[in-house]
């Protein structure tokens, strides 16, 4: 019963957030105007700037921002108890993430679809834009390293997911060929693709693949990580239609199926099953395993996506803002996109606190910080689905493990492609032409170096998870400061942006300092992460000072004329 009540409260909070708070933001703060000429109409080029139906755009936006992060973060963070994680996901989505995603979409739309990087140049100054490149490089690097480890862990802990994970690549290749080479209609191909994917899950469930002690001289952990990087490198070099596009698409469909299965299971299990999904996890965990960092501030950076995430702002201002049809659609696409991510996090929390059978089992899974994570999601969610929709527990676990792996893998290969672009861009700034093959090699070497920085088991990858959170939140506070400056200039209430900005900034800065101390503690020294952390702290101080100065300037300047946005020069930005 407990899980269902929690689910209903969570859904009600999201619904209230969307219906009340986002309406307030749309009417009073952002003052959306249906007649404002959006970049998609003003700069319509049929390529980047295309007026798009709001439901489709929401689908694009949501699937682009939803990776493995809304699963990994909450699944680790419930170690402090379910209530803090639940509150941060729900309140964070309503007052932080929704506001931030909606706001970045609006800010970019009001600036001819320019990205957050370009906006930071306009509102905060040139230095803000440089900071952006550093932060984005680190963020992408951490994404590929952490996700390689997440996938490796799942492939080892759930060997039944090995066949569907690699089989999904073949399915995607076939979907790409069917649609582009054979010109088959998309809908039947989609249905067949999803059915084949689920057939592979059933096959994988009966044929688990466990690697021997040594494969090509490597342990299973090392082998999977190397294999994933090799796969990512190949995937990021292939033409997009061959693998990336059909893979992202099938995953998008799978994401919706997965969400329905998860929430449907909680409902059905509570109503009809003999084994009710009661909450076994403590509300506040006072008996924390040794080595668990303090809840404040670490909770707020461990759950990054799912509460607030700078990455969302990149997507909002990078692509979504260029496709908004009417300005009023921003509320649905931006705010409801964040709610979609919140739903995934809420589903994860329900799985890890309600699916596990007993308190002893729960304590065993959460025996140390970071040990729970996605494995707990797979086990708990699997049990939940067994009770709810009657799928055998092992098969349900395989479904969820495959789902988590596919999200992580698509984010990883897209991350590698983006990181390659960043490397090439950095090369250009130092007048060095780096073609795509050497750039990919650099990405693979640096990524593997970070992953293996603490041993060949890939310990470095997950160790950096809180650092990923910190970097991500700093990006979010950079975006929020831009929104705040814009609101002050327009003489509108800036508090909906400033309060989250201050909280997120203080918490992520605090977390970064805490981690800095941890990385120098004798016995667990890690100079690589220490160096990365120093860069992050340096960047966050920079953001803080620049943002305060920009806000003070904005408050002193005369108010911005009402139609200034519309009169800005229309410059197309390359994406």
């Amino acid at each position, binding site marked *: 019963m407990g899980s269902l009540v929690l689910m209903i409260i969570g859904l009600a909070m999201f619904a209230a957030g969307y219906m009340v708070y986002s309406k307030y933001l749309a009417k009073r703060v952002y003052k959306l105007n249906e007649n404002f000429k959006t970049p998609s109409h003003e700069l319509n080029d*049929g390529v980047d700037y295309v007026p798009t139906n709001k439901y489709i755009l929401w689908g694009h936006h949501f699937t682009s921002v939803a990776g493995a992060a809304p699963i990994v973060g909450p699944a680790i963070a419930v170690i402090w108890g379910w209530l803090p994680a639940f509150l941060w996901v729900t309140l964070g989505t309503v007052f932080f993430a929704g506001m931030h995603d909606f706001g970045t979409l609006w800010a970019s739309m009001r600036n001819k679809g320019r990205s957050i990087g370009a906006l930071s140049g306009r509102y905060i100054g040139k230095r803000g834009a440089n900071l952006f490149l550093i932060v984005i490089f680190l963020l992408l690097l951490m994404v590929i390293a952490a996700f390689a480890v997440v996938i490796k862990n799942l492939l080892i802990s759930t060997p039944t997911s090995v066949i569907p994970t690699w089989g999904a690549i073949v399915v995607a290749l076939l979907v790409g060929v069917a649609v582009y080479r054979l010109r088959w209609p*998309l809908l039947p191909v989609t249905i067949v693709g999803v059915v084949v994917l689920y057939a592979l899950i059933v096959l994988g469930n009966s044929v688990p693949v466990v690697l021997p002690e040594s494969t090509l001289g490597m342990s299973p952990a090392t082998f999977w990580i190397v294999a994933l990087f090799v796969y990512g490198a190949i995937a990021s070099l292939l033409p997009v*239609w061959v693998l990336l596009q059909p893979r992202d698409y099938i995953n998008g469909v799978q994401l919706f199926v997965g969400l329905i299965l998860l929430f449907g299971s909680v409902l059905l299990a509570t109503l009809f099953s003999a084994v009710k999904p009661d909450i076994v996890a403590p509300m506040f965990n006072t008996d924390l395993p040794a080595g668990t960092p303090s809840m404040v501030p670490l909770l707020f950076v461990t759950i990054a996506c799912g509460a607030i995430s700078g990455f969302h702002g990149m997507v909002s201002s990078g692509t979504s803002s260029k496709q908004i049809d009417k300005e009023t659609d921003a509320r649905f696409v931006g705010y409801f996109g964040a709610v979609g991510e919140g739903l995934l996090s809420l589903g994860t929390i329900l799985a890890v606190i309600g699916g596990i059978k007993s308190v002893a089992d729960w304590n065993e899974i959460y025996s140390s910080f970071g040990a729970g994570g996605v494995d707990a999601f797979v086990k708990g969610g699997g049990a939940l689905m067994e009770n709810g929709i009657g799928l055998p527990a092992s098969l349900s676990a395989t479904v969820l493990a495959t789902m988590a792996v596919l999200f992580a893998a698509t984010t990883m290969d897209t991350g590698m492609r983006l990181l390659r672009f960043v490397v090439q861009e950095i090369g250009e700034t130092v007048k060095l032409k780096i073609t795509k093959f050497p750039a990919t090699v650099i990405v693979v070497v640096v990524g593997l170096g970070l992953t293996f920085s603490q041993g060949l088991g890939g310990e470095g990858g997950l160790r950096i998870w809180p650092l990923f959170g910190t970097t991500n939140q700093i990006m979010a506070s950079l975006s929020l400061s831009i929104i705040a400056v814009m609101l002050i200039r327009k003489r509108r209430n800036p508090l909906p942006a400033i309060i989250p900005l201050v909280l997120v900034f203080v918490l992520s800065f605090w977390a970064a300092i805490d981690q800095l101390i941890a990385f120098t503690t004798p016995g667990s020294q890690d100079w690589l992460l220490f160096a990365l952390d120093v860069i992050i702290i340096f960047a966050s101080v920079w953001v803080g000072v620049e943002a305060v100065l920009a806000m003070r300037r904005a408050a002193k300047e005369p108010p911005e004329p009402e139609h200034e946005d519309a009169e800005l020069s229309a410059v197309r930005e390359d994406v």
Partner: protein
Amino acid sequence: MASAESAAQRWEELSRRWAAFRDGMHEFYVGPYRQMFLSEKRSEDDLFMIVVLGEALGVPDPAAFYSAELMPAVWDDFHAWHRRIGIPDSPLDHIACC
């Protein structure tokens, strides 16, 4: 009679929605990669343009006899192409497109 009409209306409405759903799926598939496809297509077109105009631009082309036949196919896009690749005026002496 009236029920047949309303059935036909319903059918029409249904097929309209189905078509919209199909279009939506297609957009969901293609949308995120639209730009990449177009830029890839543009690179292919650029290559084709250079192959066809190679001889005219002064690059020795043993297959000029054949590629000359393709010239009319690239005529319409020629002006936009040379402007886009950064040559403000026509690079071919005998063609004054601008």
